[in-house]
């Protein structure tokens, strides 16, 4: 693990990006890597744009990811994927939850939700489209969207699922372990 792996998690306040980054950080620790996780969460519960960053490797200095250096962007919402696209490196992977959450300017009618987001994403980078909300619902909790997406990420990174399940059990509330395990495996088995 010489090289540093950079993963950007982007979404909307309330979607569970921060918990997801915590789990991912734990995974990196399980792998014996140096890891840094950075979050900005002042507005996290208020429907604002939320981004967390996970960097791991042999040696990590800055906790933040530079534009054009993310190996993977894990997007919890389509518009946020588009917003953070410039952070993806050439050859990077975009994993996107196929969900639309209108921001306030769109609700007010002052802006339009961009059309054809997937076309833009796909023409720019390898894009994995995930119906994570439906998958989470099928597992028993819409709140597990974040863990479904982590499952897809785990597969994409080619990392052993045991390491992830261990991190999951460490990080989620006890009552939700079963639902989250199910959600993770759904994501892991998802062929997008």
């Amino acid at each position, binding site marked *: 693990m010489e090289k540093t792996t950079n993963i950007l998690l982007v979404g909307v306040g309330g979607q569970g990006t921060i918990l997801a980054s915590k789990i991912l950080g734990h995974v990196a620790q399980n792998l014996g890597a140096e890891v840094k996780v950075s979050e900005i969460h002042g507005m996290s519960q*208020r429907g604002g744009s939320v981004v967390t960053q996970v960097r791991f490797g042999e040696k990590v200095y800055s906790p*933040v990811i*530079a534009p*054009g250096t993310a190996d993977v962007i894990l997007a919890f919402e389509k518009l946020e994927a588009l917003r953070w696209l*410039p952070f993806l490196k050439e050859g990077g992977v975009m994993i996107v939850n196929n969900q639309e959450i209108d921001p306030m300017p769109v609700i007010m*009618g002052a*802006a339009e939700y*961009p059309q054809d987001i997937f076309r833009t994403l796909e023409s720019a980078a390898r894009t994995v489209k995930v119906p994570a909300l439906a998958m989470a619902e099928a597992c028993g909790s819409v709140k597990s969207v974040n863990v479904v997406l982590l499952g897809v990420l785990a597969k994409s990174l080619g990392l052993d699922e045991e390491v992830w399940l261990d991190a999951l059990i460490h990080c989620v509330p006890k009552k939700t372990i079963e639902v989250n395990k199910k959600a993770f495996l759904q994501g892991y088995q998802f062929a997008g």
Partner: protein
Amino acid sequence: MKKLLTGNEAIARGAFEAGVTVAAAYPGTPSTEILENIAGYPEIYAEWSPNEKVALEVGIGASIAGARVLVAMKHVGVNVAADPLLTLAYTGVNGGLVLVSADDPGMHSSQNEQDNRYYAKFAQIPLLEPSDSQEAKEMLIEAYRLSEQFDTPVLFRTTTRVAHSQSLVELGEREEVPLKEYVKNAQKYVMLPAHGRMRHPIVEERREKLALYNETSAFNRIERGSSKIGIITSGIAYQYVKEAVPEASVLKLGMTYPLPKKLISSFVDSVETCYVVEELEPFLEEQLKAWGLKVIGKELFPRVGELSSELVAAKLSLGQSQHEVAASSAAPIPVRPPVLCPGCPHRGVYYVINKLRLKVAGDIGCYTLGATPPLSSMDTCICMGASISGALGMEKARGKEFARGLVAVIGDSTFMHSGMTGLVDVVYNGGTTTTLILDNSTTAMTGHQDHPATGMTLGKKQFKQIDLEQLVRALGVERVQVVDPYDLKAVEEALKTEVAIEEPSVIIFKRPCVLLKGHAPEGCVTVEQEKCKACGMCRKLGCPALVFKGDKPAVNATLCNGCGLCIQVCRFGAIREVE
């Protein structure tokens, strides 16, 4: 054992390991989690104080009594606590006292980006700046030794990227530090003028001793690299430097006030070109240049916003090419500002304020989000507590008639923090404005911390609850009423009545935050499309649960909790509760 901790969690752990027994704070991003985590250690008494000044004063008392103490706040909180801080610098401590200032370069969640390192220089107390979580923990433990050895409070400055970034931390054991003996010493702790005069020269001597100590302190280290480029740096900027310029020689300063002149001079002499890389103000650079050292700093680096490794590389023109970006979008991307949550009790109040076109002297908390469209109902927002006093100022400047169209808006926690004194001023100096206390029974913006009017402590102990209505009456306001903000008619009636009256009045809009456990209303609304005339009234609520795919709204059932405001604003009866 190594654990992945944020800087804030690491500071809490450091306080635990250092044998701290008393800790106090008022919540403020990015400092809040320090006390929340300290509260998990039963060895430490931890409290939310009503404001930062009180928190520091509690800390000072505990220190004089012999305990090791931690006090935490965000950068602007230190402004509130500056009064006791500058005198604490004179008295010194008994048990070690560390004041954590969590600064916010880039203003991720703050009203300014002041550089609080100047407070150390202002108060003449040592300043420590960690650059990651492990260092935050280690430095904090050392800070207590420093505090007790030199009889001084220590300013411990983090920034958002240290406070809210996780990195691995090696956990240690707690050192049980017995209370220091309490000895009455009026000359040291009673700062009447004659005593203060005796203490000031001691502060000067202490600064000189600290500077000497800092020459060989383990807080600073030189990492030798190329002799062509030398970089002097501290805090998070160190990480950006290491990433951007791995080949450079680096003097990493951990204790940045008072500065070690010899160490720095010899480092500057040892390299061909020396840069100072620091976020925000030229705090280090100014001192170095005052000493006549040839360094390059703010000629290159901005005084505004955060630094980053790319910025450091670019400014030093090290030939690093810009990274290949996969692509960017050609389409305009709508911004996604934070908004009041679906069902937020503040929404109804702002909706009516907007409808009545009232002017609003605002304050700091979730309700500040009422400033943005479509509610657009806030004219000012300066600092905690400035709403009521600001409204009084507006009234005094423009007359009583102006006050008939003006309200001050403040939250319950903020009213406890520093709203009360403003209200006293309104009563005392004949103000007539109406104050709205948006009481959602918590400190919502920072993540639902308790305060004196919730009746619950940081340790979740139930205590006598301060009754806001009685309190306001006791402050001399005779016109006080409590109104449910979900009842738009009642909100409008109360507002119209109170602003029209020429005497001070307070309306307490009381409804717990919907995110508070067990307080969210249950239910959901639906839109009968055939009855909807697409008039757009419900759009003015700015509710994220109403989705417009055409002119007519639909309801996002996963977000809606049936607060019923949209039912009340719809003139055509098109919105109703789902049975």
